[in-house]
C-alpha cells in the first residue's frame, strides 16, 4: 500500500546539549562619555542605576546592567550617623537583599555576608560592596567561567578621563576553581592584578603560588550574572584595601570621586552618585556568555524503496507519471521539505532543504532534523 508517513522509532531520536558562547565587550566610553549619560537611567527610588547601550528613551536602547552599592549591618559604615550616611538604610537593605539571594542563610536563618574566598565559616567578609547586575540579554544562561575581565582606574586623584593607573579584575583560574555553596549556583572569586608595567596593588595583598600576582577583590556569580566588587578595590592598603600608596603619589587615601574616599562616598553620597563615580573609573568590561542549547535530533531515514513517488499535482498528467516514459523507468521525486508530525497528523515542526534533493530507488538518505530549545 502506498504511504506518506514513516514512523520514527526510539532509535531515530536523540537529545543533546550544546553550549554556545558569545563575547560581550563593554567599552568604558559607553558607560561614561559617549552618550553624555543619556543612556544612564536613575530612578526616583534611588536604589540602583541602570546602564543602557544607547540613550534609554530610544526604542533601540537595550538595558545592559545595573549598578548599586551597599554595606552590611555590621560594617563600620553602618555606625555613621543617619544624617551623614546618605541612603544608609537603603544601602544596608540592598546589601542584605544581595546577600540573602547570592549567599543565603546560615542555620539560624540569618543572612550570611559575602565572603572573600567563599569559605563562609570564617575568613574575610566583604562588607562594603559595589554590585553590578548584568541583564539577561547579555548573560543569557550564564557567564562563562574564566572569561570575566574588567579594567578599572585606580588613579588616586579623581579624573574620569585618566586611565593611567589601572588594575585588571578577573575571575582568574575560575575555569578549574570555583565555588558551589551559593543558592544561585556557581560563583568565582575575582582577583585584581596589576596592569602591565604598573605596581598599583600593594604587594602584601597579593597571593601566593599561582595567585602571586593577584589580590582577591570580589565575587562573580555566573548563573545570576552578578559581580560583587569589594570596596577594597578602591581603597589603600593602609585603610583596609588592596591598593599601594603609590597610586596617589604617596598620599593617605585615593579620591574615589568628588573628594570622597570610597568609604566616604558610600556614607556621604547617594547610590546613584556612587554609581556615577564608579562608571567613570571603568575602562572596559568583557566576558563571554553561555547559552545552553538543548536539542532533539530526529533521524529521518529514507530507504532506497521509500519516497520515490510524489503526490504533487504536477507529478501527473492524466494520472501518468511525468518523470517516466515507460513503466520500467525508475521513479524519481525531489525532496524540499521534511515534516515532523504528531500521532494525530498535526505538523509540529518543519525542515526545509536549501535545494531540492533527488530521490530515486538507487539513493538512500538520512536527514538529521535538529530542534533546539
Amino acid at each position: 500500500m502506498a504511504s506518506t508517513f514513516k514512523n520514527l522509532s526510539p532509535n531515530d531520536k536523540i537529545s543533546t546539549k550544546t553550549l554556545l558562547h558569545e563575547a560581550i565587550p563593554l567599552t568604558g566610553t559607553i558607560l561614561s562619555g559617549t552618550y553624555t549619560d543619556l543612556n544612564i537611567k536613575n530612578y526616583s527610588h534611588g536604589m540602583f542605576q541602570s546602564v543602557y547601550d544607547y540613550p534609554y528613551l530610544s526604542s533601540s536602547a537595550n538595558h545592559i546592567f545595573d549598578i548599586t552599592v551597599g554595606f552590611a549591618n555590621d560594617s563600620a559604615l553602618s555606625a555613621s550617623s543617619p544624617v551623614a550616611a546618605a541612603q544608609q538604610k537603603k544601602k544596608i537593605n540592598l546589601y542584605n537583599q544581595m546577600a540573602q539571594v547570592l549567599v543565603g542563610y546560615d542555620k539560624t536563618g540569618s543572612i550570611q555576608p559575602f565572603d572573600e574566598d567563599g569559605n563562609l565559616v570564617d575568613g574575610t567578609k566583604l562588607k562594603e560592596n559595589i554590585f553590578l547586575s548584568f541583564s539577561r540579554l547579555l548573560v543569557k544562561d550564564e557567564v562563562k567561567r574564566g572569561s570575566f575581565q574588567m579594567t578599572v582606574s585606580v588613579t588616586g586623584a579623581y579624573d574620569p578621563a585618566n586611565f593611567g593607573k589601572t588594575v585588571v579584575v578577573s575571575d582568574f583560574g575560575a575555569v578549574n576553581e570555583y565555588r558551589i555553596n551559593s543558592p544561585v549556583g556557581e560563583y568565582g572569586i575575582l582577583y585584581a592584578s596589576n596592569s602591565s608595567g604598573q605596581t598599583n596593588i600593594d604587594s602584601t595583598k597579593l597571593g601566593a603560588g599561582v595567585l602571586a600576582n593577584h589580590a582577591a577583590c570580589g565575587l562573580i556569580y555566573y548563573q545570576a550574572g552578578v559581580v560583587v566588587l569589594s570596596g577594597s578595590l578602591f581603597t589603600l592598603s593602609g585603610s583596609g584595601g588592596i591598593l599601594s600608596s603609590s597610586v596617589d603619589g604617596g598620599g593617605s587615601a585615593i579620591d574615589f570621586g568628588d573628594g570622597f574616599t570610597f568609604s566616604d562616598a558610600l556614607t556621604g553620597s547617594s547610590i546613584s552618585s556612587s554609581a556615577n563615580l564608579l562608571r567613570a573609573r571603568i575602562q572596559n568590561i568583557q566576558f563571554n556568555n553561555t547559552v545552553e542549547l538543548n536539542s532533539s535530533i530526529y533521524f529521518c531515514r529514507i530507504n532506497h524503496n521509500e519516497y520515490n513517488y510524489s503526490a504533487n499535482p504536477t507529478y501527473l498528467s492524466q494520472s501518468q507519471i511525468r518523470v517516466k516514459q515507460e513503466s520500467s523507468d525508475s521513479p524519481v521525486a525531489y525532496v524540499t521539505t521534511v515534516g515532523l508530525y504528531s500521532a494525530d497528523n498535526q505538523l509540529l515542526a518543519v525542515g526545509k532543504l536549501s535545494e531540492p534533493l533527488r530521490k530515486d530507488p538507487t539513493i538512500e538518505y538520512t536527514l538529521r532534523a535538529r530542534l533546539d530549545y
Partner: protein
Amino acid sequence: MAFQDNSGDIIFDVVLTDEGRRRLARGDGSFNIVKFALGDDEINYGLYDTTAATQDQDIEILQTPVFEAFTNNTSVMSSMLMSIPRNNLLYLPILKVNEIADGSSTEFHSKNVFHVAVDGNTENNNGVSGGDGIAFDSAGKIQTGFMLGFSTQKSSNYLRIDAGIDNSAVPPATNIADLFLDETQYSLEIDNRLGSIISKDGTTRLSPASVDDDNIALYVVSTETDPDFVFVNTVTDSGTGNGQVIEGARSTYLEFRIASSIDLRQSNFLFNRLGAELSDLTSQDGVSTPDYRYIDTLVKVTGLNTGYSVDLPIRFIKLK
C-alpha cells in the same frame, strides 16, 4: 518568506510550527513527534524533460530555489512524497471531485463553489413558503450547489471525492489494491469556526481528531471505521459518465456534508470579519435577490495513503 541560500553546502533549516509551539507551551505531552513525511511543494515536475540526456533531465528542477520554512502548520507540506513498494508504476491515483455521481446532488454551483446555508432562514425561510430563503427554488427543490448546513437531518446535496487512476490505460476492472495504490483513508481540514463534517444523510457527526492553533479542524475517516463516509467503488464500467469521473482503476470515494457552526447561525461577527455581502442569488419566491452575507473558505481533502489532495471551495451564506 525568503529563499534559502543555495550557493554552498546543503542547509537543512528546521523550525517548530505555530501548532508545535502551542503544544509545547501546553505542556500536556501533546508535543510528541512520532513520524515524518517528505514534501516537494516548490517542485514543478513539468520541468522534468524526459527527452533530454539523463544528466540534463532534471537540471531545471534541481535549480529550483526553496523557501525558508513557514511556521504556519497548514502552509507547508501541501504535496507529499509517497512510498510505494513497486518501482514499475506508470500511473498513480488522484482525487477528483465527482459532480455527476447523483444527478445534481453533488454538482457545484455555477459560481464554482458549494454554498452552505447556515440557518433556517437562509435555507427556506424557516419552512415558510415564499420569502427570501435561497437554498430552495420556487418548486421546493434544493438548488444545485447548495447544502443545508442547518437542517442537517434533511436530505441535502453533498460533496463526493473519488480516488483512482484517471487514465484508461489502467482499466476500471483492474484491482487497484494489487498496484498498492488503494486509498483507504482520508483527512479533511475545515475551519472549525465555520462548520463541521457530517455524513451525507446527516446522521453521523464526526469528531475532529484535532483542532490546531488556527482553528483548522482535522478529521480522519477510513473505510474500516467510517462506513458512512468512505465507500469502496465497485463500479467497473469503462470510461466516465454513469456517475463515474475516474477513467481507469477505481479505489474508494468519500461523501460528506458540512454543518454550519453555531457561531455562524447565531451571530454575524465572523461574516463581518471574514466575509462580505452580495445579492446575486434568486430566492425561493423565484423573483427577489435578497442581500446575503458570505464567507469563502476551502475544505482540504487529502488521501492519507497516496498524499494527493484537493481543495474544495466552500461558501457559507446567511441572509441579512
